[in-house]
């Protein structure tokens, strides 16, 4: 669970969609669909960065606080936070949950409909879409209660997920697959999703400090690998890792997906907002 101070920082942020939202209930996003009235919808507290033209000065005068008047006909986006719930995410799960919570909070604060779907052994477990900050706790509890296990083909699960309204899917995974996530991105695009990708890797995966004769046991049941790790091999691993990360990045780029690499060794709250803003996952 993220602390209040961090969540407060997220108030002014919301997921960035490249395409206009469509359908759904009214949201904070400008829709292509033309509204027939400028019906007042809701107030939202002003956060730095908001358009000051939308500030309701009457509310300010009344409450001595800045509020934005949601009076334009705006529509919600359906945002799915797809968490990789396979065993490889085991030690990275807390960090993944933090990322999901932060993003969900930002999306809920922005008026989007948000759900968390966890894809793992046994299929996809999806919480119902939520709206408003009141659903933040529900969604964060849903993610935190899950324990990653087993292995799964997320691309297949995504294809079979229903309902899956068009919108945006933030994929949080380590993407440690042979295709570096390309099949998943293709499946999401097939389902009409804009894709964002957050790759979560642990310090042991990013900067392994092993040495000696080791037998690596894969958490997802792949055959064990016996190695004698020395400096040379570590250099070769780094080369391979860099190429792999580049492949993931390229796949994201090909699919128009903003990409962030999160090191679980760093405190998420310290780097999350910066990285999300830099990558364009949040605005």
């Amino acid at each position, binding site marked *: 669970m993220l602390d209040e101070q961090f969540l407060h920082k997220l108030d002014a942020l919301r997921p960035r969609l490249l395409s206009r939202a469509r359908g759904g209930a009214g949201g904070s996003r400008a829709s292509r669909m033309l509204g027939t009235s400028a019906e007042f919808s809701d107030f939202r507290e002003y956060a730095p960065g908001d358009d000051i033209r939308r500030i309701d000065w009457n509310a300010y005068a009344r409450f001595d606080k800045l509020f934005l008047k949601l009076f334009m006909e705006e529509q919600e986006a359906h945002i799915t936070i797809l968490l990789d719930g396979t065993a490889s995410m085991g030690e990275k799960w807390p960090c993944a949950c933090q990322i999901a919570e932060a993003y969900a909070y930002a999306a809920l604060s922005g008026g989007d409909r948000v759900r968390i779907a966890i894809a793992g052994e046994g299929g996809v477990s999806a919480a119902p879409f939520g709206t408003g900050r009141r659903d933040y706790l529900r969604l964060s509890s849903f993610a935190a209660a899950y324990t990653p296990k087993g292995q799964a083909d997320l691309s297949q699960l995504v294809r079979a997920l229903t309902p899956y309204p068009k919108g945006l899917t933030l994929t949080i995974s380590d993407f440690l697959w042979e295709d570096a996530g390309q099949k998943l991105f293709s499946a999401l695009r097939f389902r009409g999703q804009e894709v964002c990708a957050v790759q979560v890797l642990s310090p042991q995966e990013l900067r392994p400090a092993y040495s000696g004769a080791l037998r690596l*046991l894969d958490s997802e049941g792949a055959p064990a690998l016996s190695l004698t790790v020395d400096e040379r091999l570590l250099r070769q691993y780094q080369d391979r890792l860099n190429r792999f990360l580049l492949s993931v990045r390229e796949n994201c780029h090909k699919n128009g997906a903003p990409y962030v690499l999160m090191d679980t060794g760093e405190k998420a709250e310290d780097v999350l907002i910066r990285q999300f803003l830099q990558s364009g996952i949040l605005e």
Partner: protein
Amino acid sequence: MNFLQPLGAIGFLAPALILALYFLRRKHTDLPVPSTLLWRQTAEDASAAHPFQRLRKNALMLLQLLIAALLAFSLMRPALPGRVAGETVMIFDCSASMQAKENGVSRLETAVEKAREHINAMRSDAPLTILSVGGETRQALSRSLDRSLAREALSSLRAENTGADLSPALSLARAMDAELGGVTILIFSDSFFPQPGVTVIGCGQGAENRALLSFTAVGDTAVARIANYGKDAELTVECSADGALCDAKRVFAGEGENVSVFFRAPENAQILLARLVDEDAIETDNAAYFVRRDAGETKVALAGSNTFLEHALQLRQDVRLIRTTQEEWDGLEGVKLYVRDGDTVVFSRSAGFPPVTAGEVQAAEDPLSLASSAGAEALTRYLTLSGVALRQYRPLSGGEAFLRCGQDAVGVWGEDWAALGFDLHDSNLPLKYDFPVMIQNILSYLAPQDEGVKDGKCGQSLTLSAGGQVTTPLGRTLFVEDMGVFADTGEAGLYRLRAEGKEYPFAMVMEPGESDVRAAAETVYEGEAGPRTGQQEITGWLLLAALLLILLEGGLSRRVGAY
């Protein structure tokens, strides 16, 4: 290959330990990781980039095994058959028995061949001395490092016709060992008994041989004495007279027996030769010569008229008796012996009276006896004086006694005279067999027969009374001075001395004791169970190889990665 330290084989446990460690090393630490994807890809990258990685790993293990094996091997101190170090003295028995042929090869040839093997096994910095011992000891090679000279020295060795006394050569070798230390003494012989500190190289296996022990002739009859040093055999013996075959006999000789063979030979033949026709181990002793010697004339002047004495003197064919008086002796020439017959009988080489004094006549109360004085054997040999009686005598003084009557000397002799202290008529000695024998003894002592050069054994030195030219059995011609010593008698057979217009043949025979070659010495090594062989330890080379491999392994192990 020998191993100087066989217990070092325990070091071969090391390769076994290495193998065990290698398999133990394969126990890896389990490490759970989220995903092995990247590691697997990395390993594949490494294999693709370094396809010989696995091979390098195996090569490392093989190198380590090889190093361990080399070290273990070196612990055993292996040694290759190398060359014998240290100085060597080879003593060759060149006696007549080394001529014996066995399977067509003489014992000396066998010895030389074995010596060559030893020389080939010697280190090039090991000095070699070669001594040959026949009639005398010769140094064929002295502390030489030149192996070609050694081979020449071996080739020059010849078995002689004499015996061999190896003691002087062995003493020389021991002296060298005492001075230099570490000298190996090898004796190549067929009859040397083992001694401490000496290695005897046996050069024979035992062979059968027959030999002519003696050959003599009287009148028209010649007798050869044959020894059979072998199994029962039928032997053929020929007799030649002055080069022409005159008789041949076939005789059976039992194992180890001596047999006599009689031949008919011309009385006037000067040189008789007996020869065994059948082949045997030694050819040299299959021939024997008999030389009839023309003694020439020996003038003996006799003053007296004792008939028995005259006959006794004339028994020797060369004696020409001149009956005369003492007064006429000065006018005689060429007299070898003067004999005065009277109440004493005096024999002398000169006309003058010898330094002998006769005492008063005494009755003989004791029988005549031989006096046992040194040097009297020449005069008393073959005498028994059995039944010899003496009536009276004059005791003699001067010279050495050779006859006694009681305590009195009745027969005395000096350097060139002899005397009897009794009248021959006062004794029955002239009627006894002893009388002519005694007279012949006195003749032989005072007027020996001129028989030219006597026969002898090979290696024996002869003093020739006359100088001249000697032709050896092999046809060599040598010159000898008057009264010179002729020592070149190594050849067996007939020699001829030409001196003063006359020819004096004489024969030298092989040492008879060398004819029995039925036994042969066995090889006895000095204090060890086997031959002393050189060994070249190769431990150092193995250690060097191991060190190089360690360096290679170190370099290779740095480059080894994942497997």
